């Protein structure tokens, strides 16, 4: 019990010190960096400062004078691990636009993590592909409160949370249904 309390104190200390230096990203900020939910966000700082992964490591890092560099959500999975960051993420260098746009993209829907019942773990409402490192968005000082996990210590997220890949429901084969009747 004592050990547990000690851990909790440490955790709250870490949270407080983190919050003092880095604010969670707001929904508006997050949306402004993307064309639509699912599109890669633009780089909000000078991108010539060094190798991206030196700050955006798999754990994220506090960078003095710049704030918190969130971890990369892209886990090193086979097939895509060697992709250069700047193939998809480009630096925003101006606020100007060339021509206005009438585009309306899909927005992030924070309410979509469906649960089988209120105590069941919600399913993952987004594609896991290219977002394999759950901790990048769901933990850390930059994580938004809406999606911050209450249990970052449980390392294997997908033991309980599964990706929804279809909106369909199970349809038994004709043979199985016949047996049921």
């Amino acid at each position, binding site marked *: 019990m004592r050990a547990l309390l000690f851990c909790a104190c440490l955790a709250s200390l870490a949270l407080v010190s983190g919050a003092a230096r880095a604010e969670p990203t707001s929904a508006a900020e997050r949306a402004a960096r993307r*064309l639509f939910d699912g599109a890669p966000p633009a780089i909000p700082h000078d991108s010539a400062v060094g190798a991206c992964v030196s700050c955006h490591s798999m754990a994220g890092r506090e960078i003095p004078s710049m704030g918190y560099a969130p971890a990369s959500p892209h886990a090193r999975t086979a097939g895509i691990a060697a992709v250069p960051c700047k193939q998809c993420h*480009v630096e*925003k260098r*101006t606020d100007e636009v*060339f021509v206005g*746009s009438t585009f309306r993209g899909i927005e992030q829907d924070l309410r979509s993590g469906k649960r089988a019942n209120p105590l069941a773990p919600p399913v993952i409402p987004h594609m896991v592909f290219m977002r394999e490192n759950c901790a990048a968005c769901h933990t850390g000082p930059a994580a938004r409160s809406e999606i911050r996990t209450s249990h970052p210590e449980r390392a294997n997220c997908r033991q309980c949370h599964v990706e929804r890949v279809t909106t369909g429901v199970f349809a038994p084969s004709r043979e199985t249904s016949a047996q049921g009747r």
Partner: protein
Amino acid sequence: MKRREFLQSLALAAAGVAAHSPADRAAAEGMRDAAQIDPSDLTWGKAPCRFCGTGCGVEVGTRDGRVAAVRGDRKSPVNRGLLCVKGYHLPGFLYGEDRLTKPMLRLADGSFEAISWDAALDMIAERYAKVLETDGPDAVAMYGSGQWTVHDGYAALKWVKAGMRSNNLEANARLCMASAVMGFMTQFQSDEPMGCYEDFEAGDDFFLWGNNMAEMHPVLFSRILETKRQRGDVRIVDIATRRTPTSDYADLYVEIRPGTDLALANGILQQILAKGWVAESFVRENVVFQRGNEDLEEIGWGCYGAQKDRYTFADSGRDSSIEELGKFLADYTPDKVATLCGIPSAQVETLAEMYGASNRGTVSLWCMGVNQHTRGTWMNNLLNDIHLLTGKIGRPGANPLSLTGQPSACGTVREVGTLSNRLPSDRLVTKDEHRTTAEQIWGLEPGTLPAKPGYHTVDMFRALSRGDIKAIWIQTTNPWVSLPNLNRFERSPGDGRFIVVSDIYPTPTTQVADLVLPSSAWVEREGVFGNTERRTQQWNKLADPPGEAREDAWQIIEVARRMGMGHLFPWGEDEWHEAMYEEYRRFSLGTGKDVASYAQLKETRGMRWPVVDGKETAYRYAAGRDPYVTKSKGVHFYKAKKYGEKAAFWLRPYQPPAEVPDDEFPLWLTTGRVLEHWHTGSMTRRVRQLYQAVPKAYVELNRSDAIDLEVGTGDRVRIVSRRGALEATVEVDGRGKPPRGTVFMPFFDESILVNQLTLDAMDNISKEPDYKKCAVRVERVARG
């Protein structure tokens, strides 16, 4: 109570009873909200990406007839779910506020007035009919692009060649891929590569020639990087005239002087021969030797003296031999090549050793540096030659693989044949039997298709300036940004020409038009593209076009009908896409370029031709893989009838570029693209994220040149060539680092037209312009 209702009531009861903590209450509310709003209210469909020639598969999510999201298609064997920054931002390019939505006619005072489709189509039909009547079929023209769908290109081909009996049909792939076409044609008598993207996993050594793959073909480049990460023993060699993001990933960066790639390739051949790395039995069985016209006086560069207005040089070949090759290569010893290229001679030997290693799979990849070259076909020949001499061709991981920059440069321009000398599936207008096949499929009187090739692109626009062409219709491209030596194509008011432009946004090209037509784009219509690796990909209409925008093929068909050529398009108003494609497909069947059926394309993520018995072909000419090969093992170049079904190895010398730096213009200018923008930027600049990443064109200077000029990043300079001048902002040590004596500018920016500086020198065989080499000087303007 049914089981499901019971579970629901249980859940609700649990929510009521057990919601004793704020977190649980929030969760219960979350569950109710989730029941009301489903984020998967988008309808998803498949399409190939609209931008480069890689042909990545994307899933397109639409809502209320508009595209709201895209994601990489994990079922696509091309990209396996990954995209580049342009691909992820695809939806944005459709919705710029200034989309063209109505046909617009230019009035006498220069302004535009909206008119009806009927009036616009009638006007085109009348004007073209009048020019045909008074000046004949040589005075009409159509100019499209590698962004035309197969349907657009086939409609254009039929209208121009079968309808108006003119061969003045060109496409901007002439500015882009023509040298690769002529390379494959002169050696294998069939266009397009034998290899495919599986070479990226199967290969050991990847040679990039004049090709900034990390920015131009990022998804393919990341396949190579992933292979390197997994296998470790993979090597990347970057041979270039400017350091780019690609160079950062290379094991060996070889920086050569502009135009000396010809010497380097010959130097590699010399070493392969001298060191005994020739695959002798392969060469004996599969290769013949040819030598062409090397008379520099006669060849010229297509832009000086008598060639200034028309460039019609034709190459001729004679039989040669490996013995003659040995003597020919005496001029290309490592020392001589090293001096010409400006590299250590040891580098020449290293490259040759890598190519010569028989236990390594070698893939050569190239793009605009090799193709946009006054000896681009020669350079293509030399790269194919290296693979022929070492026998590294037609098997997994060992191939010459030319990359393409437009989504259907292969599928439409090269396969349908929307060029002034071509007909579908490798056929030429100059060959009687090829015209006869076309006349049969199209139901024309025998002997009525014209046999004389029309103008190639640069000569077409020169003829338009002269007035020899009186009517031209331009679709899906922006020549008043992309043509070389732009100033010579400036239009004077009241010149009597009739220029129609179909596009989706206003551009410098619509600015010179008499009539502007609004086109539907990408998934706003049904279509087919063909990518670099011979993969034909189909998509359905997934979104609504804005206003009155209509697809390019429809526009052509409606004009043809009004000119009395409706019999060429005998399909109904709806559901004509499959019927038209199946007619086109008849050209391909039995030729070794058999494209897949429309029904099969609808079901798959593309099929690589030749498709025989419903099965695609990954490797052409390879025994056991290509159904046309009759040999039991090895390769069989069955298309090259002229050379006894063997491939032709061409001896090609080094010749200098058309313009080289001197005292007055001491710097090389080379032009190109950046990752974020595609071609002339008319689509990508309208996407906020892409524009904000690279808003304007700039000029890259070497640090030493910048110090000499006393300028730095952000300063304004004036860049002057013999043809024009413009101002741009300097960038030093940015993403691209040219060597001392070279400057680089991208061409995407319509407000900084770098093609006002470039020279309209061309390849002697393909007639593709050289955008990579001309001479300029740079002057300081003011501190930024």
